[in-house]
């Protein structure tokens, strides 16, 4: 079993009376790539800042390798941060930026030069030592920021939406590079993002957050295939969420029809939320299916078509590689394991 390097215990934080974090409990295992995912204002950045030492929680504890570091200032922590807007020192060149932390540790000059050289190689910026920061592109600045943090050989690297300012292509490249670096260096990464795709493709563990609470913790596959509640289902990927009634174990009724499903353990006739991924719905001929509808919109998305099918009062979003023209009547086939049943959350 991998060991827990960071453990947040009952951490809460308020800003001027607003609850930013409510009773967060979270383990971060050694060498894992953990992503805090959620919409803005969900508390993911606050969680990161508490780990980094820039905020102190109102209550609760932060354990680092089992030691309480709740009140330890950032400069004494064995974590380093890659900031959202890079926060590179504008008065220093690339070399001096990266060497900043090493010089504070009073490391030998030769060793510093060697380490900076090696880390620049790692982030593909060899030969950039003497470049000024404002002469670099956004992607290059990003790499310098990562190098500046990594050169200190932290046990945990914190990344606060580090790719947010980059364009799509560069972002995808950097995602792969970051993941490679993490695996090669064996450093624990704690990554904050609001981009579910980024989270799914890079993480070992995803923590989905909403309004200062953790909604679900799991591997990307778990989170995508077995979302715990409609919020997670909706936030991770696209979903059709309809209300239904759990007639009895393995039988659910929604959209005017009864379906077999794989869920059980609900009360008889309990109202539930039914979540179905758009790619899990097959378009068949109307006669073959319990659900019929009319195609009202078709959008070509490159890899697939996205169709909107109206069935009575429900609109279904469907992703498929084959296409039915607008206005045609179709049947919708949903297999039992594509149906995710969730306990109805009472609206607050």
């Amino acid at each position, binding site marked *: 079993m991998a060991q827990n390097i960071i453990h947040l215990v009952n951490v809460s934080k308020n800003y001027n009376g607003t609850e930013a974090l409510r009773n967060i409990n979270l383990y971060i295992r050694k060498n894992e790539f953990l992503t805090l995912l959620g919409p803005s204002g969900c508390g993911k950045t606050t969680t990161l800042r508490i780990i*980094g*030492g*820039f905020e102190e929680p109102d209550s609760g504890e932060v354990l680092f390798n089992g030691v309480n570091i709740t009140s330890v*200032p*950032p*400069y*004494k922590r064995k*974590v*380093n*941060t890659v*900031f*959202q*807007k890079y*926060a*590179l*020192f*504008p*008065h220093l060149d690339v070399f001096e930026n990266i060497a*900043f*932390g090493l010089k*504070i*540790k009073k490391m030998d000059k030769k060793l510093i030069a060697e380490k900076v050289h090696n880390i620049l190689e790692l982030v593909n910026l060899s030969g950039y030592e003497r470049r000024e920061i404002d002469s670099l592109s956004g992607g290059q600045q990003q790499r310098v920021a990562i190098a*500046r*943090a990594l050169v*200190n050989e932290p046990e945990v690297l914190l990344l606060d939406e580090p790719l947010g300012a980059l364009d799509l292509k560069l972002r995808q490249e950097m995602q792969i590079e970051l993941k490679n670096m993490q695996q090669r260096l064996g450093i624990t990464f704690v990554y904050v993002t609001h981009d579910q795709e980024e989270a799914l493709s890079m993480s070992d563990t995803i923590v989905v957050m909403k309004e200062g609470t953790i909604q679900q913790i799991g591997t990307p596959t778990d989170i995508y295939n077995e979302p715990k509640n409609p919020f997670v289902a909706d936030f991770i990927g696209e979903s059709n969420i309809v209300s239904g009634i759990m007639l009895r174990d393995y039988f659910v009724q929604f959209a005017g029809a009864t379906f077999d499903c794989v869920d059980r353990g609900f009360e008889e006739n309990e109202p539930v939320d039914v979540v179905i991924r758009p790619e899990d719905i097959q378009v068949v001929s109307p006669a073959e299916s319990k659900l019929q509808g009319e195609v009202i919109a078709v959008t070509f998305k490159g890899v697939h078509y996205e169709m909107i099918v109206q069935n009575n009062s429900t609109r279904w979003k469907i992703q498929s590689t084959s296409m039915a023209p607008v206005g045609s009547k179709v049947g919708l086939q949903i297999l039992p394991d594509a149906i995710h049943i969730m306990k109805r959350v009472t609206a607050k």
Partner: protein
Amino acid sequence: MKSKWLSFPYLVWMLIFIFIPLLLVLYFSLTIRTPDGLVFSFDNFRRFFEPIYLKVFLRSVYLALISTVICLALGYPMAMILAGNNFKRKNVMVFLFVVPMWMNFLLRTYAWMTLLERQGLLNTFLTFLGLPPLNLLYTQEAVVLGMVYNFLPFMVLPIYSVLRKIDRQLIEAAADLGADQMTIFRRVIFPLSLPGVMSGITMVFMPAVTTFVISRLLGGGQFTLIGNLIEQQFLFVGDWHFGSAISMVMMVIILLSMGVLSRYDKEHEGGGLW
């Protein structure tokens, strides 16, 4: 080409009020009055380097330097406190700091005279305590005090505005990389505030080195500064030629020192000239 026309009035203004007067000063400085009329000569400049005048010049630079250093030593911490994040009544403080500058410069300096003179407020207080009165007015220290008092805001404000613009994340980044408070100041905050420091130094040193009011009122005419020398040449001696020459020398020296200073001012945010 519209912009060309728009700049026209300013060009005329500059020609009449800057360029021509400068030429006149240059003309006067390079001529002397002889019985045969005006003659071209470097005599005025030669005279400036006579020991008696050189001493005045050195004293001016010396007092101005001291005042600048004191202003920096007082002004930088002041600016840091003002720019500090946890300082609630920031605007009130900045306001209070600027208010005296709205009052007439002469009035402020006269006020110091009534404080420092033999029967002034300070000495009355000392006598009241049974202490012997001090000779405060008409000393070098009084002149320096006057300079510091009058020019301190010019040091604080540019440093304050630069400090306030420093990104909080840079400070967090430095802390993240292992820097304690002192190191953060030394390696991040101070280097980033240098443009403000440079323009503060410029804005204090320049008026301090050329002042003649402060030295006359608080120095009682005992400490002739370069400004007083120029004033005397024009108003009392009537030697416009020598006066112009001193002015020219001062101008060149100030230009040179500005040039040196702005070399350190990479960002060109301050009051550097080039």
